């Protein structure tokens, strides 16, 4: 508790570790502008696309732009309510600092992808600190965007 993740895993609906051949990179919050993805503390801006925890892919059959993109963690019920018993930090690849994205009012903004394409990738590092023991599976992370 009250420290940040040393590992990141995929959890099956039954609660078992489902990370086999699908283990996400672990990126740990160190300080406001630094992170450790497994090779020691470095600036957030030095973490590469392929070293981030998540690759979020938006696809469409014709070419669209994706803009006004935000991402935040919430309690799984009300988007403006911070996650229960979790402190969630995010940054997009290239950012210089973490965003404490607890609740929609604290959402992280991502860079517009404003060249029309059928596929848009977004790379996000995520670090979490629990304030209580136990599974916190009611919480959720929301990704929102505009497309044309």
């Amino acid at each position, binding site marked *: 508790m009250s420290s940040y993740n040393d590992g990141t895993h995929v959890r099956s609906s039954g609660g078992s570790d489902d990370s086999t051949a699908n283990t996400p990179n672990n990126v740990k919050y160190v300080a406001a502008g630094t992170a450790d993805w497994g090779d020691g503390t470095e600036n957030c801006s030095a973490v590469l696309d392929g070293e981030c925890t*998540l690759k979020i892919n938006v696809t469409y059959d014709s070419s669209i732009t994706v803009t006004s993109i935000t991402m935040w963690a919430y309690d799984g019920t009300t988007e403006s309510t911070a996650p229960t018993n979790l402190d969630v930090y995010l940054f997009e690849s290239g950012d210089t600092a973490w965003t404490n994205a607890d609740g929609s009012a604290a959402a992280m903004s991502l860079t517009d992808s404003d060249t029309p394409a059928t596929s848009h990738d977004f790379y996000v590092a995520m670090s979490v600190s629990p304030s209580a023991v136990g599974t916190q599976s009611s919480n959720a992370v929301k990704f*929102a965007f505009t497309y044309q």
Partner: protein
Amino acid sequence: MLPEEKVKFVVGLSNGEHLTEGEGVLSKVRGEDSPWWKLQHYLEDNDLEIRSMSLYSKTKVGNRHYHLPNENNKFKGEVPKAYNCFRRYSGDVLVNNARYEHYTVMEAIYDDYKVQLWVSEIDNDKCWVNMIIIDHELEERRKKDEEVFGSSGG
């Protein structure tokens, strides 16, 4: 892959043409520009402007038509200086059976504000009107950023 939209936009142009999303000039073809970007190219290539905009959808109880004010305004509303249409999507990531929201939005743009009509893609019978004050200082900063960086950063 994003869900297929059921709500389509219809525009009236300065040459008298009416174009419908997914049809003719604005046909939706895999790998080509979306109907919205096809419309932008068509306007630019033919030196045209949008003079009216509406949304339509086929629902369980019949066709729905939603209209923004225009120069032939039935109710004498103020004529917009421009129009826009976009989709807004938000959904849970990292979980199965993710909840999501999906809207088609058209907006009438005036000097100092925008009037938006949001229609739910999940239930086309539900819509909302929203009014937004335009922050001219923010718009100016965005334009300068685009000049410097060549893209509007998030």
